[in-house]
């Protein structure tokens, strides 16, 4: 984590160091990004935060720069989100702290920590309408007095209170400290050489990154400081809130319906069905029919082939690399933009809706029990669901899991048994005509492999998995603009990550084919493919393509004349088959070459063993 050292990475994000920085800070799901979008209407730039998968948005507001931060419960370093937020907060000149009025008790902990850091803070007390609906009366004047800073009530989705907030940005000030004398004295001791109250506080709270940045030892007072802060916050909350009894909020009612297994499980199944209809049917068939067939194959490909042919002979090696069967400009471009992009974007649109509506953590709670058998906890449902979009990206999000052991299990299962959206589209197209029986055999087989592999890993891997502990945000109607923005960012990330690897793979395959290696491999493994899996030997070509991209392999099956039984076996093999090159590279980065090689080998073994067994029985 060298490049996450305090305050350094901001230099790598493209912002003017001479301008004052306003930083937006808040807990997850408090509507922070609406404030960001409001303050910075034009010229928003999004840059990747070095060493993480997190994107940081920045933009101009008058003569200042506004930076958004990931939603966090406090300033510390439990995970990447917190480290990034911490670094940006440390660099802030002014902090706009967005607080959820309904969750004052939780949110003010962060507020008080920002104040304790000595930052100039102004609070946007958001979701005031919801607080009112729930019968919560918040005494704003009293809250201002207790915190010692300005508090502006807002309703972000309706842009209420925004101009008031703007008027108060320059009035951001240092507030009242929650640390008692004993801790304040320790802080002063540290601050003697550090000479930065915010940094000193984090060192006092045991933050290793900040401490090593200053060549100091992290102190062990975190719990003590946190206790003092918590007590102070509880006292403030008690003082400023008066409750009236009201009926249960409609969001709460939906929230508990989603959680209770009796209603929650049918709703979840319904949702998965909707997802299948949307991504698997609408996007994979209707939309891709337009983007891939009509636009790419009928219009784009003849155009690019014509264009390139006038400079380079199509039958030369360069010609074949560029515009041949696996051409970089033909097949690669068609696949990425015609097939994969619509699928991935459609999937992320759906997932962003789940995330922003507050449903995702409830799914995590609901499936927690099932996942504990696999050595995971409910939180792992997030990478698993993401995996149906793109395994590569899902592999990166396994970082949010609590232990190394869980990461290994999740990455292995993702690589083994979760088909990505591109692959799913092709699989759905191939299996649908075969009838219900084949569909069931396929799903049950893959599910069994998933469950057995997880249970096995849970048994053999040393150590213990962490338990579920998550905050369930209220169920809310998501904001359209945020959903679109998230979908855009994730889709862009996908293209940037997978595109070059995909192009490289296409070049590799062309070279193999032209050099005769493809032919040779095909003949060498023919006895195995024909004898054990009972497939025609041409299937090998699809499998070799599958090493580069699994969906690529599945698509290769399209052109073969297979019987129903053969199609089923081939699909099972290609699903369980090795993860694509992009996913492998990420696995190597996340877990090291040894783990990645184990996943790779394990997939080979699992794919061909299971495929052969199914071939024996059908």
């Amino acid at each position, binding site marked *: 984590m060298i490049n996450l050292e305090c305050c350094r990475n901001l230099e790598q994000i493209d912002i003017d160091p001479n301008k004052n920085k306003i930083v937006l800070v808040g807990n997850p799901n408090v509507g922070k990004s609406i404030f960001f979008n409001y303050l910075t209407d034009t010229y928003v730039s999004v840059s990747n935060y070095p060493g993480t998968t997190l994107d940081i948005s920045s933009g101009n507001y008058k003569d200042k720069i506004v930076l958004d931060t990931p939603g966090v419960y406090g300033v510390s370093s439990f995970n990447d989100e917190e480290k990034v937020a911490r670094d940006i907060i440390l660099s802030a000149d002014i902090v706009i702290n967005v607080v959820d009025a309904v969750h004052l008790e939780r949110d003010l902990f962060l507020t008080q920590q920002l104040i304790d850091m000595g930052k100039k803070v102004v609070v946007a007390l958001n979701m005031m309408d919801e607080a009112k609906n729930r019968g919560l009366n918040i005494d704003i004047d009293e809250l201002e007095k207790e915190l010692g800073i300005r508090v502006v009530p807002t309703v972000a989705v309706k842009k209420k209170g925004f101009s008031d907030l703007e008027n108060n940005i320059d009035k951001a000030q240092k507030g009242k400290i929650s640390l008692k004398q004993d801790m304040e004295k320790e802080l002063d001791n540290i601050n003697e050489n550090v000479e930065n109250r915010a940094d000193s506080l984090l060192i006092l709270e045991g933050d290793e990154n900040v401490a090593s940045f200053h060549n100091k030892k992290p102190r062990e007072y975190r719990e003590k400081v946190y206790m003092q802060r918590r007590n102070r916050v509880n006292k403030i909350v008690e003082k400023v809130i008066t409750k009236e009894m009201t009926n249960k909020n409609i969001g709460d009612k939906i929230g508990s319906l989603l959680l209770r297994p009796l209603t929650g499980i049918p709703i979840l199944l319904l949702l998965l069905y909707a997802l299948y209809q949307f991504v698997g049917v609408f996007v994979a068939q209707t939309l891709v029919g337009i983007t891939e067939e009509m636009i790419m194959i009928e219009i784009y490909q003849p155009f690019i082939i014509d264009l390139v042919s006038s400079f380079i002979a199509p039958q030369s090696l360069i010609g074949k690399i560029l515009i041949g069967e696996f051409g970089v400009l033909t097949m690669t471009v068609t696949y990425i933009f015609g097939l994969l992009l619509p699928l991935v974007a459609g999937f992320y649109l759906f997932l962003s809706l789940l995330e922003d509506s507050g449903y995702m953590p409830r799914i995590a*709670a609901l499936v*927690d029990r099932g996942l504990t058998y696999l050595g995971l906890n*409910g939180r792992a449902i997030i990478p698993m669901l993401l995996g149906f979009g793109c395994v590569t990206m899902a592999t990166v999000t396994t970082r949010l899991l609590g232990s190394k052991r869980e990461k290994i299990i999740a990455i292995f299962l993702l690589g083994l048994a979760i088909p990505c959206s591109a692959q799913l589209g092709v699989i759905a197209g191939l299996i649908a005509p075969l009838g219900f029986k084949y569909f069931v055999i396929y799903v049950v087989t893959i599910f069994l492999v998933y469950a057995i592999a997880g249970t096995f890993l849970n048994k053999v891997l040393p150590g213990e998995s962490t338990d579920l502990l998550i905050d369930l945000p209220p169920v809310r109607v998501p904001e359209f603009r945020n959903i679109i923005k998230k979908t855009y960012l994730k889709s862009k990330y996908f293209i940037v990550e997978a595109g070059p690897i995909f192009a490289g793979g296409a070049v590799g395959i062309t070279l193999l084919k032209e050099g005769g290696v493809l032919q040779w491999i095909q003949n060498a493994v023919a006895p195995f493919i024909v004898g054990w899996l009972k497939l025609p030997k041409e299937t090998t070509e699809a499998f070799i393509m599958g090493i580069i991209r699994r969906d690529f392999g599945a698509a290769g099956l399209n052109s073969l004349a297979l019987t129903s039984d053969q199609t089923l076996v081939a699909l099972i093999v290609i699903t369980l088959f090795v993860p694509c090159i992009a996913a492998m590279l990420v696995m190597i980065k996340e877990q090291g070459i040894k783990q990645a090689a184990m996943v790779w080998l394990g997939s080979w073994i699992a794919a061909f063993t299971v495929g052969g067994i199914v071939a024996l029985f059908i």
Partner: protein
Amino acid sequence: MTLAEIDRGSDFKVKRIPDDIIRIQTLRMGISEGSKLNCNEKIPGGPIIVKHNYQEIAIGRNLAKDIEIELFTEGSD
């Protein structure tokens, strides 16, 4: 008793959270030893959902087994 043994709808007080990291994380969310909470939902064999004012937190069953609590009825404290 432990949090895992609670019934849905019961009010309780947190007595002890033994794990250091968990204690810190719950502290930030607003729950500390001594907090008075309500068990909002109990997913069979799965997490316990506790509620503190309007804040809901899902706690895995195994973790719940480590958290010591004590029941109380409204007004007895």
